[in-house]
């Protein structure tokens, strides 16, 4: 932590470095809360991180100017509950303070709830919520510690979304994990099978998936995720998950090709297909 009295900053002459964020000008500013100085090793990584970020085609488009007015932070839901505020991030970006951007990414960026209120209100038209997504995307790409921690409890969900294209499953609402939703919300978990069976849409009758996508769709989705490099970027975060997804892909792809071939030759007997490929 910073001690107000001992903070000594030597400011360059550039006027963009002079603003409310320095200790001399007031009480401990948010820029200094929870951010420590980086070690030499981290500084190098921070610079690399920033350079990749700043060379992304969206960065300069999303980052315009900043009045330092705080309109963004004043309406930010996350700022009401966390040590977090978008104004702070934009200020670091305006000044190219790569070390602070890096620290912000590790300590604070995951607090944002992606409501886009800041983006709509910013008088300078910064696409603030989009810049936050850029930081998160690059945190995953760089395999940063904060991304690993955040994604650890999220693993099952990642597997579901990357292999089926559905984010959540009906059967994930279980008393032990969702007790705070109350007894009424958990009622269905007891007899999930029959409650799902009673939904009047055939695609929505399973308990382990929101809707039953076709096999071809699942394979196509995974092809996109692989070709666009999403699966590859998981390697740094969770190697087991990466391996699992690739295995699933190979199996499904082969199965799909067999079915397609039979169909094209007119040899496919629909009756012989398993009731659901999800059960395989």
């Amino acid at each position: 932590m910073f001690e107000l009295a001992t903070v000594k900053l030597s400011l360059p002459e550039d006027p963009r470095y002079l603003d409310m964020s320095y200790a001399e000008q007031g009480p401990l500013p948010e820029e200094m809360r929870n951010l420590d100085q980086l070690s030499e090793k981290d500084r190098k990584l921070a610079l690399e991180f920033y350079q990749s970020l700043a060379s992304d085609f969206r960065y300069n488009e999303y980052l315009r100017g900043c009045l330092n007015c705080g309109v963004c932070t004043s309406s930010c839901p996350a700022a009401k509950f966390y040590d977090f505020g978008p104004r702070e991030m934009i200020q670091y970006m305006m000044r190219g303070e790569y070390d602070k951007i890096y620290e912000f990414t590790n300590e604070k960026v995951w607090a944002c709830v992606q409501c886009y209120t800041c983006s709509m209100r910013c008088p300078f038209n910064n696409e603030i919520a989009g810049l936050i997504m850029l930081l998160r995307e690059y945190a995953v790409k760089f395999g940063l510690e904060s991304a690993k921690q955040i994604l650890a409890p999220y693993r099952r969900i990642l597997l579901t979304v990357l292999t089926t294209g559905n984010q959540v499953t009906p059967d994930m609402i279980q008393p032990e994990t969702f007790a705070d939703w109350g007894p009424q919300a958990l009622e269905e978990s007891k007899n999930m099978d029959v409650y799902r069976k009673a939904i009047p849409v055939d695609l929505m009758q399973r308990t382990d998936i929101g809707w039953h996508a076709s096999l071809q769709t699942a394979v196509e989705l995974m092809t996109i995720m692989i070709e666009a490099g999403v699966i590859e970027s998981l390697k740094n975060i969770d190697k087991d998950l990466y391996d699992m997804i690739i295995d699933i892909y190979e199996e499904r792809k082969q199965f799909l090709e067999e079915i397609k071939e039979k169909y094209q030759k007119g040899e496919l007997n629909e009756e012989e297909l398993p009731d659901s490929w999800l059960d395989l």
Partner: protein
Amino acid sequence: MESSVEQNPEREMERAFPNDLDWEEIYQRVIYKYSSPHGIQHIKELMYKLEDKGEIIVQHIKPSNNPVEYQTINGNPKKIPTTKLWNHKSCGQCGHIPGYPTSVFWIMNKLETDYVDEPHQTSCTGWNYHASGASNPVALAGVMVRNFWRAYEIDYYPLIHCGTSFGHYKEIRNMLILHDEVRQKLRPIMRKLDMDIVIPEEIVHYSEWLYVNSKRAASHKRYDLSEIKAAVHTPCHVYKLVPDDTIYDPIVYQGRRPAAPTGTVINFGAKPVDYSTWWDCCGFGFRHILTEREFTRSFALFKKVVPAVEEANADVFVTSDTGCVTTLDKSQWVGKAHGYNYNLPVLADAQFAALAMGADPYKIGQIHWHATDVEGFLRKIGVPIQEYKEQFIQYLQDIKEGKAETEFLYKPHRKIDFYLALPDRVQYERPQ
């Protein structure tokens, strides 16, 4: 130790604002994106130029979609197709609020709308992206275009169920149109799937569809809502993400708030009531609702439910997105631990409308998946809830024992449809 910024500020300035970037080009892009009132207009002009050059396929809204025209916040026209619709599903709705999509289909059946609901789609994957950051522009665009392709090839117009999918697709559409480099990377991937880059002329949310049909739908109304005070939460991703691409109407707060879903509530004869945090987020947070609910519960309760009840005496909360229904509905019970026992019923606009039109609250509205007191609300408007409940319990029992079949809203798919996306599928997928 001096940082490199301090050692060499000029070089760091260079890094922050590189000279080798084409700033003129970036500036033009930003103008297109933001300059009010022409933002979306410019995107559309560019879209048609790309179409003329054969760079993309645009799926047009046709007379067979029977479109109506409304205005966006900037007064620009937005066409809303009303029939021949391809329902683009929402993962969270289908997973945890099944009565949301079933209400949409039920209303469509009632209004004799032509639609398909098919298994050849994934979610937009936007929930995952905003939660985890584990994706990238090309992948997000690929997911969107793959889904749109399936609608395009059978000539049905995409209608997007989820608010996040809607906002997210508007953003990705803009990105695809503005950035050649994304198209260049995406094209070979789509070719691998025997598809091309297709973009619909308008990105349309079902809440817009419901609003433009709400007078017609309300003519089928069975219960009187004139005593009902409805607090409305307009979902952030519907109107804050690409703000100039959703419809407004002077009947809704003089056109100062989005037309949907408030306009639907008005056209159904209920009273929309105002509260000071109407503009605030619900607290969903994407990742927060799953793995950091301390925030979600507190925000939903104190920033939304408490003001809606204390300031506006609301009888019901009406909203129009997956995440908002889930958050507002599921975050109330836990407040009891601290003496906050509000139990304000939460419904999607489609459920609100379908229930008022006389849909079965359990078989169609699927209100038993809600945590708040929806039954109490229905009793208030005169729905014989006990009767429906007894019938439903019997129905569940019969299904369980194999004595009854599920009463489907449209003909179930063939087995092959769960495997392959066949060109002849549309003949089998239309409602009966």
